[in-house]
């Protein structure tokens, strides 16, 4: 069974953090098909967060087809995320490494690179591209 944690300072809403953590666990193979997610009561007893938050997260995961809730029993993983592991995005990795090299040549330090990437990522997300 996985455990959730909450980063109160991240600016990301709690229910999204739970969604991301489930997806991340699925990607890393920590959760596989048939595994049970922690019950709402268990999550809430550890994190001291609103049960509605957990319910919302689980509902969104269910909506995305990743989990299914069985009333009275619990919420269970129904699929694994597409078997794309981090290692298999070879082409994307290479593009990224090339871009990073270019950014360094342009004189950007680590912080500027992160800021630039974050800025573009967020505004693209807002436009619904990412």
């Amino acid at each position, binding site marked *: 069974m996985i455990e959730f944690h909450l980063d109160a300072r991240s*600016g990301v*809403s709690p229910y999204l953090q739970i969604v991301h953590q489930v997806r991340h666990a699925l990607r890393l193979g920590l959760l596989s098909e048939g595994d049970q997610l922690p019950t709402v009561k268990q999550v*809430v007893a550890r994190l001291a967060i609103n049960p509605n938050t957990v319910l919302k997260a689980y509902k969104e995961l269910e909506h995305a087809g990743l989990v299914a809730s069985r009333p009275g029993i619990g919420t269970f993983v129904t699929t694994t995320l597409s078997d794309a592991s981090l290692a298999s995005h070879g082409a994307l990795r290479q593009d990224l490494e090339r871009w990073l090299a270019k950014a360094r040549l342009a004189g950007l330090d680590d912080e500027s690179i992160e800021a630039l990437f974050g800025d573009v990522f967020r505004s693209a997300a807002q436009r619904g591209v990412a």
Partner: protein
Amino acid sequence: MTAVLRASGLGKRYGRNWALSDCTISVPAGQVVGLVGPNGAGKTTLLHLAAGLLAPTSGTIEVLGGRPLDGPAQLRRVGFVAQETPVYAGLSVADHLRLGVWLNPGWDNDLAERRIEQLSLDPKQKAGKLSGGQRAQLALTLAIAKRPQLLLLDEPIASLDPLARREFLQGLMVVVAEQGVSVVLSSHLVGDLERVCDYLIVLVASRIQVAGEIDQLLASHHRLIGPRRDPGRMPANQEIIQASHTDRQSTLLVRTDEPIIDPSWAVEQVSLEDLVLAYMGRTADADRRPALSEVRS
């Protein structure tokens, strides 16, 4: 949605001082409501009115569809934990559970005893010798074991250390998850409320400044940073909550349901803490526009 607490023009006056003025609010059921405001803002007064400890000076208040002063049936449905969590110092923990049995027809003693055991409280210990955190947990146990539909908690964690605070909130959230009880929880600290509440009421200087679901509040409040701008020239659909200016730059905290289309502004998310602080610091001046109606879910 049924309202668990409804007030209309509610006010309470002591002598010449209005502790609460003109409160109109409709709090939906099944939520954990945070009541935030500085000390002396009227949070305790509002909770006492809802719990039937005070009678209104003006206006009306309805709790779970009934009036707080209606009688035992009404008292049975509401659990209350007062500030400083008063307990009978000379009575033991077990005696307090007996108090619950004797005074509440709907008392669930199994739940109470289970909770006491989980909390590792010694039933024979005199309540006066408990630590602050233990007392708060005992008071919460008494309130929840009567199986109420609504829990009113007046600054239950204010004087607790961080661990005790976390444990209290964990216990409270488990109760909400298990029993589906609605909660109204007051505090003058925002941080703890953020993870626990879905609905927020900001009470400052005896008046409700803003109320609504936290997600909606965060979505409708923005920080705008840009070149210096006269607040009077802002669009009418944007309510300015807070404004500060340098000679070159203006930083505004606005509330609006419409998207911000003016490209000269950098738009940022506002944290719940900043939102509350802005309302707490708000003064009546020219920057303020007529208030928008309450944010609906």
